[in-house]
């Protein structure tokens, strides 16, 4: 039957699943072991009368085991929650373990002390606002950095800003006599209005130009899924997935301020507001000189270098001034829509 001596003989000499052999001696992984060592005295399995102090979720319990419950594993341990007051907890231990072996009482008290100490320390640490260390993942950083650069280039902010400003001029948002506008630009706009008034029909050439222009604009500045792939052909497989596209879009949109991807779902509604946001942001950045040069020269902000490939486009546009072109290539769906409408 259950016999401590035999249990110890078997577990010590044969096999105990809780025993861990280390250089420091044998340790015991049993959760109820009071010292953590594997020896005859401290083994919770080989002693039918045993007591421990355990901590669960910040609460400290005195756990006791007696021979009477040796055959009921489910109810083997009697758990008594100790009071939070340390002195009272000591008293409770003294009361519950009265007449128990002296060493057991002392070890339980020592364990209680240690547990309360580390709990105090834990609470203090929590209040300390400890900075968490986040590892720098080289691959990730490198990837994101290059994506940012590419997205910036792809966004062609300067072009979009230019377009936006011209649009605003055209739409007379600044009134009939706007200030700080290059004379030639203003004249062209006025002429453009006149031309538009003349003929609504667009010639083939103009259409072609439009398409080309549209297409090229899109290739140049679009961040739509399909075209973006061409743009970022060298990248890893991750780019092909939709999730990554979403991320791409997000990254691209970082420059446009705090806009969530949900904004892009209804493109036409938000396009204007987007444009405005963009404009506002860039307006604050740009100075008079920039505005005047917006039509002719490529805007190169100090931070990033001007992408030379894109430059001919604005010039071409101002020369061959076709009918009023509405281009929105900030959003995927918007670009598509405009493309469809302008087919």
């Amino acid at each position, binding site marked *: 039957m259950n016999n401590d001596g035999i249990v110890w003989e*078997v577990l010590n*000499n*044969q096999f105990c699943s809780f025993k861990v052999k280390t250089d420091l001696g044998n340790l015991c992984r049993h959760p109820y072991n009071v010292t953590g060592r594997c020896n005859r005295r401290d083994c919770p399995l080989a002693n039918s009368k045993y007591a421990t102090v355990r901590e669960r979720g910040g609460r400290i319990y005195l756990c006791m085991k007696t021979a009477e419950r040796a*055959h009921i*594993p489910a109810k083997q341990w009697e758990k008594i929650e100790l009071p939070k007051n340390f002195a009272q907890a000591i008293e409770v231990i003294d009361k519950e373990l009265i007449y128990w072996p002296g060493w057991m009482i002392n070890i339980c008290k020592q364990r209680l002390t240690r547990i309360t100490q580390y709990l105090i320390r834990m609470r203090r640490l929590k209040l300390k606002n400890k900075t968490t260390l986040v590892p720098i993942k080289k691959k990730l950083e490198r990837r994101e950095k290059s994506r940012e650069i590419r997205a910036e280039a792809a966004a062609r902010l300067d072009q979009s800003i230019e377009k936006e400003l011209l649009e605003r001029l055209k739409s007379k948002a600044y009134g009939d006599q706007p200030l700080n506008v290059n004379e030639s630009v203003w004249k062209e706009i006025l002429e453009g209005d006149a031309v538009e008034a003349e003929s609504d029909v667009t010639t083939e050439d103009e259409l072609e130009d439009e398409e080309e222009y549209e297409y090229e604009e899109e290739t140049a500045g679009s961040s739509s899924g399909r075209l973006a792939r061409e743009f970022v052909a060298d990248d890893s497989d991750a780019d092909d997935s939709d999730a990554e596209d979403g991320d791409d879009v997000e990254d691209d949109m970082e420059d446009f301020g705090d806009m969530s991807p949900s904004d892009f779902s209804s493109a036409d509604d938000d396009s204007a507001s987007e444009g405005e946001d963009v404009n506002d942001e860039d307006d604050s950045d740009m100075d008079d000189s920039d505005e005047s040069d917006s039509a002719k020269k490529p805007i190169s902000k100090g931070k990033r270098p001007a992408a030379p490939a894109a430059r001919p486009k604005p010039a071409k546009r101002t020369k061959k001034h076709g009918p009023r072109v509405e281009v929105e290539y900030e959003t995927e769906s918007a670009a598509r829509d405009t493309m469809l409408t302008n087919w």
Partner: protein
Amino acid sequence: MAARPVVSVFGLNGSKLDATVPLPSVFTAPIRPDLVQFVHKNMAKNRRQPYAAKQQAGEETSAESWGTGRAVARIPRVGGGGTHRAGQAAFGNMTRGGRMFAPNKVWRKWHIRTNSNQKRYATASAVAASGVSALVSGRGHRISGIEEVPLVVAAEVESLSKTKEAIALLKALKAYADVAKVSNTRSIRAGRGKMRNRRHRQRRGPLVVFAEDKGISRAFRNLPGVELVDVTRLNLLQLAPGGHLGRFVIWTQPAFEALNKVFGSQTEASVQKKGYTLPIPVITNPDVSRLIGSDEIQAVVRPSGPKNMRRPFAQKKNPLRNTQVLVRLNPYAQVLRRAELLGKNKKTKKYTHKKSASAKFLQILKAD
């Protein structure tokens, strides 16, 4: 045992039933880890299949030593020519392509016979050990949720046929943790056994013992780690896997009750094992350390000596020259030595040569 303890029976839903079974005598059999290990070792060898090197392996050449004088080692070398093999060493266990040292023979004694009584003793020990919750949890079974050890389930379990029901029962008994442990520990074996049809390894789960198979084996057999066995055929290799005592056993009530017939008791012979009675322990309370420390014995024991005995002497002293040591060995020597010394003094003082006899003596001599 003054009164036999009683074991409760659990129903299919895991709740304790009113029925109880008195504990069979097997569970009071002495637990002998040494014997179990010995018998297990022998029994485990009985399933072996012979292995051997090919009989002529390494000797299928007509190699001869070149002898001395050729600036090569004297090991036999393959004769002939025109091939790499010519001149290569052969036959030795150290040579490449040579015969191994002491080639394995198929007539090695693969199976070990053990005395029946020893085998029965070991099985009884193993059954007894399965009733000690400390041993079962020490062996590694997850029984912290079990309501009672030994775990006895109602007879209806023997009629279960669906694995779903079996799982439900185990979960109700809180024994499913042990089965889950098995599936969690399933891993690919390290080593060549992988490609020898021993690919996976996993822990052992509960052993379900029944008296009559009315479908129970079909219910439990697909669960990983669960083994089923008839109570009349209890196997030590299952009760103490690896020679380690304390398998988690789930008994059905009929099986539990049948244990008395299978093993008998210390006084009553077993029905199944003709004339067999359970072993009588040499010492009824094997917890020797507790016995020694008990009040009854401590009351009559003489006080112990010093913990560390002092050495009697660091330098041996010759008794013939050192009086103290002499006296330690022979206390009477002191008396003798003292007398000797006193006598010496006396002698020198009192002894005087007499020139003639005393007057009284002469008188007596001459008296007629």
